C-alpha cells in the first residue's frame, strides 16, 4: 500500500487510474443505455459522465489509499490538498479531452459517410448513363426511322400533298429527340414537343389502326421531368398496345397539375397484357428506375390493365418547376 501514498510512482499510479476511469466512462456511455431520451444528446452524456467520474474516482483512490486505522483523508490537510488538486486537474482536463475525442470521431464518421455517398453517387450516375444510352437506342431506332422514311418516300413518289406535312413532323421529332438525349432534365412542354410529332407520324403510318387525343393542363407545361418520360409511355402504348393488335386502338395522353403534384396518364385500348406479355416493361422498368433515382418515393409509376384489353400507365410526380 505504500506506493499509493506518496512519491512519483504514487502520483503516476493515481493519474493512470484516473485516466483509465475516464476512458471507461467515455466508452461505456458511448453505447449504454441503448436508447436515450430525446432531450439528451449522447455526446453530452459522455462529457458529463467523464466529468462526474473525476471526483468520484479520486475519492475512491484516496479512500483506498488511506492506511487502516488512519483518519479519513479529508481530515489530513496535505492529503485533502492532494485530492483537491487531482480532482480539479481531472475536471479541468478530462471533459475537454472527451469532447475533442468525440469531434474527431464525428469527423471520421463523416468522412466514411462521404466516401460511401460518393460511391453511391457514381453508381447512380452510371445507371443514369446506362438509361440514357438505352434511350438513345430506343429513340432513334433504325426500324422506326427507316419505316418512317419509307412512308415519306411513298408520299413523295405519289406526289401527295401530305408529304410535306409528314416531313415536318419527322423533322420536329428529330429536332426534339436529338438534344434531349444529352440533357438530364426536361419539362412536360418539351416532352410534348416530342410526343406530338411522334403520334402524328405513327398515325400517318397506321391511319386505320391508331387514333389519339391529348389533353394537357397548361399549368403543367413547365413542370420538370426526366427526359423522354412521356415519350416512353406513349411509345410503350404504341409498341405493346397498338402495334401487335390487328384492329389497333386509341391512345389518350392526359397531363394534369394537382397543386404540388403533376399526373401524367397514358391510356390505350390496344392489345393489353394478355397478348404482349413478355415485351412489356423493359422501357417502363428503366423509366421507373430513373424516377426512383431522381425522386425516390416522391414519384410513382402505376401500371394497370383492363381485364381484356388496354393498359393505363400513370406517373405521379412532384410539380417542380
Amino acid at each position, binding site marked *: 500500500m505504500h506506493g499509493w501514498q506518496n512519491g512519483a510512482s504514487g502520483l503516476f499510479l493515481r493519474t493512470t487510474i484516473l485516466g483509465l476511469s475516464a476512458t471507461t466512462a467515455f466508452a461505456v456511455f458511448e453505447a449504454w443505455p441503448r436508447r436515450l431520451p430525446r432531450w439528451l444528446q449522447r455526446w453530452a452524456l459522455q462529457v458529463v459522465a467523464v466529468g462526474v467520474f473525476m471526483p468520484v474516482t479520486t475519492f475512491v483512490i484516496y479512500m483506498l489509499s488511506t492506511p487502516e486505522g488512519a483518519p479519513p483523508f479529508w481530515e489530513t490537510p496535505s492529503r485533502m490538498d492532494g485530492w483537491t488538486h487531482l480532482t480539479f486537474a481531472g475536471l479541468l482536463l478530462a471533459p475537454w479531452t472527451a469532447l475533442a475525442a468525440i469531434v474527431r470521431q464525428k469527423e471520421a464518421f463523416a468522412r466514411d459517410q462521404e466516401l460511401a455517398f460518393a460511391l453511391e453517387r457514381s453508381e447512380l450516375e452510371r445507371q443514369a448513363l446506362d438509361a440514357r444510352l438505352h434511350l438513345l437506342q430506343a429513340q432513334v431506332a433504325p426500324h422506326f426511322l*427507316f419505316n418512317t422514311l419509307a412512308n415519306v418516300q*411513298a408520299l413523295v413518289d405519289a406526289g401527295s400533298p401530305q408529304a410535306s406535312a409528314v416531313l415536318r413532323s419527322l423533322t420536329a421529332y428529330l429536332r426534339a429527340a436529338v438534344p434531349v438525349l444529352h440533357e438530364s432534365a426536361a419539362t412536360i412542354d418539351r416532352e410534348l414537343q416530342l410526343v406530338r410529332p411522334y403520334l402524328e407520324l405513327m398515325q400517318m403510318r397506321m391511319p386505320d*389502326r391508331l387514333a389519339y387525343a391529348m389533353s394537357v393542363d397548361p399549368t403543367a407545361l413547365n413542370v420538370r421531368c426526366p427526359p423522354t418520360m412521356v415519350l416512353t409511355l406513349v411509345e410503350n402504348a404504341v409498341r405493346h398496345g397498338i402495334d401487335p393488335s390487328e384492329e389497333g386502338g386509341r391512345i389518350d395522353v392526359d397531363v394534369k397539375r394537382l397543386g404540388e403534384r403533376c399526373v401524367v396518364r397514358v391510356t390505350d385500348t390496344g392489345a393489353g397484357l394478355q397478348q404482349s406479355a413478355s*415485351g412489356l416493361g*423493359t422501357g417502363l422498368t428503366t423509366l421507373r428506375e430513373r424516377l426512383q433515382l431522381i425522386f425516390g*418515393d416522391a414519384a410513382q409509376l*402505376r401500371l*394497370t390493365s383492363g381485364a381484356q384489353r388496354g393498359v393505363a400507365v400513370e406517373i405521379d410526380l412532384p410539380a417542380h418547376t
Partner: protein
Amino acid sequence: MKPDATALIADDEPLLRDALRRQLAEVWPELDIVAEARNGREAVRLFDERHPDICFLDVHMPGLSGVDAANHIGRRAHLVFVTAYDHYAVQAFTQGALDYLLKPVEQARLADTVSRLKARLQSSRPAINTELLLQQLSEQLAKLQGGGGKTDVLRWIRAQAGKTVRLIAIDDVDYLRSDAKYTIVAWRDGGKPAEAVVRTPLKELLEQLDAEQFAQVHRSVVVNLRAISHVKRHDNETAEIHVKGRDDVLPVSRNYLHLFRQM
C-alpha cells in the same frame, strides 16, 4: 403463253402497300396484284382464296407476322420478304438465300428481284424449300421481340384488383407469402405498405425471381432481402425477420437459417 403472273402484297402500313404496288407497276407492268393484306392473318386468308404466284410479305405485322404467313404458304408461292431494318432478319434471309427488300424500296433493287422472279417463273422451278429456315427465323424473331432475351427474370407481378389488373414492380415487393390457394404479395404502394393477392403459386413465382434479391426463408415465405430491417435469432434454431417500415414478423425455418449466419 402463260397468263400474267399474280402477286399478293402484305403490309400493315397502307402507304407502303401503295408504294410497292406503284413501284411494281413501273418495273413489271404485266404483274397482276390480286390481293393486298393488312396483316398476317389476312395474307393467309387471301392467299388461300387467290393462290397468287408471288407473295411480298412485310416481316413485322400485327397478329401473324410475315414469317408466320410464309410458313403457312410454304412452297406454294415465291416469297419476297420486305423489312425496314432488321439486322438479324436480313442476316437470316441472306444465309437462307431468301429474297428480301429493304424499305424504303429502291427501284434498282426491286428490278433485280423482279428479274430473278421472272426467271424462276419461266423455268417453272418450284419455289425453294424454306420450311426449316422459316421455323428458325420465326423463333429468332419471337425472341427478339420478347425484349432481347432479358425476360427470364420477372419484373412485374400482376395482381387482380376488382376488374383491373395492377402491375406491381418487383422492386416494390417486400415479401411473398403463400396462403392456401393464393399468394399474398406484401408491397409498397408509393412507400406505403400494401397487400395484394395473386393466383400464381409461390413456388412458380420463386422460379422467376432474381435469386440475388429474393430468398426463400420458410416453406411459405419468400422475402426481398433489401426489405429486411434485421433478423432476430432464437435459441431453438429458428429466427424471425423484421421488415423495414412494417410491424410484420416473418418466420425463418431451420432449413434456411444458414442464410443469416454471421459473416
